[in-house]
């Protein structure tokens, strides 16, 4: 089955069985290895991508469901050398440790820090991160960075 979609701004066609997880197409066919297959059951958020602007776990999304849609991966969020505000804030807050969860975190925070998406409060940001697990950092610096972006301090 041929599936057409827009991937990081580029029209692409894939010949894959319709139930193929989106993450496998991204990683194996497109060599976009930013999204990480960590739990493969939608709990950890490390494989998060934007589908038509909405954070979506690519491990549980069959490729057929994004036919005709717009998919943005963490690689697509950073085309230039200068990191966007979310990535810059996480870097400035020294939030990164092993880094495996961050591609997914960055995708969700990119969405969450859009105006009107989330209150600029620690509690609201933590609620917004419910679908993400980080095993290294203990989260607080990620929240600090998100808050800084929302408050325009970045």
């Amino acid at each position, binding site marked *: 089955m041929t599936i057409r979609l827009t991937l990081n701004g580029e029209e692409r066609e894939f010949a894959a069985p319709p139930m193929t997880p989106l993450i496998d197409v991204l990683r194996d066919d497109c060599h976009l290895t930013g999204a990480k297959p*960590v739990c*493969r059951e939608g709990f950890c958020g490390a494989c998060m991508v934007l589908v038509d602007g909405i954070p979506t776990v690519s491990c549980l999304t069959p490729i057929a469901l994004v036919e005709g849609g717009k998919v943005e991966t963490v690689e697509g969020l950073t085309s230039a050398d200068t990191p966007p505000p979310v990535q810059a804030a996480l*870097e400035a807050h020294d939030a990164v440790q092993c880094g495996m969860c961050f591609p997914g975190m960055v995708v969700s925070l990119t969405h969450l820090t859009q105006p009107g998406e989330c209150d600029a409060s620690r509690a609201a*940001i*933590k609620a917004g991160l419910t679908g993400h697990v980080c095993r290294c950092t203990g*989260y*607080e610096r990620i929240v600090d960075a998100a808050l800084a972006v929302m408050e325009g301090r970045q």
Partner: protein
Amino acid sequence: MSEVAERAVQNLRRRDARDKLMGRTRYTIDRGDRGMLHAALLRSDIASGKIRRLDVSRAAAMPGVRAIATAADAPGRAGLGIADHPLFATDIVRYCGEPIAAVAADTEAQAKAALAAIAVEIEPLPAVLGMAHALAEDAPLVHPDWPSYELLHAGGKRGGNVAWEASVDRGDVDAVFARDDVTIVETDFEVCRQNHVSFEPRATVAHFEDGRFHIESSTQVPWTVRNTTATVLGIPPSAVRVTVPPVGGGFGLKFDCALEPFAAILARKSGRPVRLVNSRREEMETCLFRENAQIRIRSAIAPDGTIAGREAVVLMDCGAYGGEQVFLTTMTAHTLGGNYKLGAARIVSRAVYTNTAPNGAFRACNGVYNTFALERHTDEIAARIGTAPDAFRRLNVIGDGDLGATGQVFEGEVLRPMMAKMETLRAQTPVAPLSDGRLHGRATTVGTWFVFTGPSAATVNMNADGSATLVTSGVEIGSGSTQQALPQIVAAILGLSPEQVTVRAADTDAAGYDVGVGGGRTTVSLGAASRTAALDVRTKLLKVASDMLEAASEDLVLADGRIEIAGAKGSGLSIAEVASHAQLHLGPIAGTGAFAAANTPAMAGCCAGHFIEALDIPVFAVHDCDIAVDPDTGHVEVLAYRVVQDVGKALNPRAIHGQVQGGVVQGLGYALHEEADVGPTGQIRQNSFETYRVPLAGDVVPVAIELHEGAPSIGPLGTKGAGEVPILNVGATIACAVANATGKAVHALPLTPPKVLALLLDSAPPPRFAHIKDRHIDNRLPPDF
């Protein structure tokens, strides 16, 4: 060197952060190669049995299959203290998940299809699934042939299902307990397993080229992978090269050889690169967990409130093979035997074989549950003798010149000043009183940990452009030590900025031996070797500069990329000028450095079976928390968490704060809801994120942190390891606070809501282990073995 130490201190950012944030970092799971095959393992689905038939001929004929490996391809046995572990189950299967065969095929799907075509018949044998059964008189032996295994470390007693026994005997404990003026307090404790859940699973890509193996792996221990792969394959270690891409989390899980030899064999057989990655389910079911353990502590308290004597039995479930657990029996003497002055001490720590997935090393291994047990026991002592817990601790904690359990003499007054700092920190971070019916609890605990010293090597190459290249076998597992502390140390000595120090990724062909990244040793051991190598370069640079400037070496200073004559800024040369002059006329400048354990002595004759008898670098921690317990649901909320941590010298305070926050949160998971255990068939019951609950953003609080500097350390510039210890007393602190809130004795972790409710309802009797005998001597193997 104090000027150098001060120059080394800075909140340097991580150089690897940006690529990690942009999704560009290539971890082992992200790597590939042309013609690469995908491998999969056939694992046992029963806990104990005899392999009656194993036929791979049908699988070998399946589409895409390029190579199959079985026990015949890996003749050797490996281990840490005992060579008890074959790569593949050989005749006997000892745990659910044990590898039986490996297949490499063009695709992962083909490899898995081939696994299903392997004919295997296993005759079930009686399985030993818990330590009570393993220590019973008539228990089947997990390793009937244990006496024939090669011993790799002398001194530990072994016998039957006791893989290893380490013991401490100092003073006449029987006489102390027989005194009529002592108060005797005895408590049993139990903890389950904890899964590391590092985000990157164990993963490897192996190549076989020009008669040698090149293994890329997600590991903390490239040299262990090199040597163990050689042992199980029966080849010289020099035939194996290990390189390590950025590692997506380790926490101790990757402190042992894992999948690498399977991929290596398949690469040799197929002549193609082979990738092998654990699925999350394999990772959950065969995790080298923090071990489940059972503990009994008995103390004799003198009328003056001092601890006249203490005896303890610690049973550690090592699973089907000894592995790291054999080594970790050592740590009981220093963790459960730590913190307090003891008049006399008698401690035995046993690694017990069971037919379950092998356990391993996990951040502050052994220390986390022994500190839980010790600190809860301490609170029970204080309650029994009618003393405030803090006052009891202040009286009894180890101070300058005091003896540890193994008779080591501790230097420096550390814990008492740290406790005083905690009182201040507590006063600065008050919590609001609860008015919602929940029960408030609080606790302060102390903990003793260490730095795993041991051999490290470093080379510093001084480049003609004025930059330096640091070459070590140090792995970046996420803590940042190789990205921050190491270049900070080298740069401070050479008068460079840390950005001018390139850090070579681990490669056993490029750098000398290293124990590995773990045990808080990167900044200390690799840092010390790097410091020596940088000093070597510095001496050589100054010699060349002295000739060029016609000034005595001792009159020269290195700073800001220049070598100046002291007191005459601008009079000298740039380091690049000196380095390029040297390169042209004398050859490039390089320096080497090495480090090894100091082997601090214990009291003679105190210890048996220990790998480390005394701590080269003790590390202390004081933790404190406020919690709220919901009496209706049993839910525990952490209201505030505070840490005063002994760091020696903080080279990168911001990085250390990040480690403390992350380590405490991992500890909160252990204390409150992370629970892995063995089901009735011997399988680990929690095999996914759905069934194993790790902390989420909503569960955590910002930890209030104070770093205690100035305690003695042989680490470079006075440093101690800071990344491992933050998890040490979290279980202890939460448990003591829950006991404080509820008025009930806490004897087990984790404190899930059902367990807290059972405490409140008095419906869970305290553990009492019949297989831990009343007489201490009955918990020891006979002396003649």
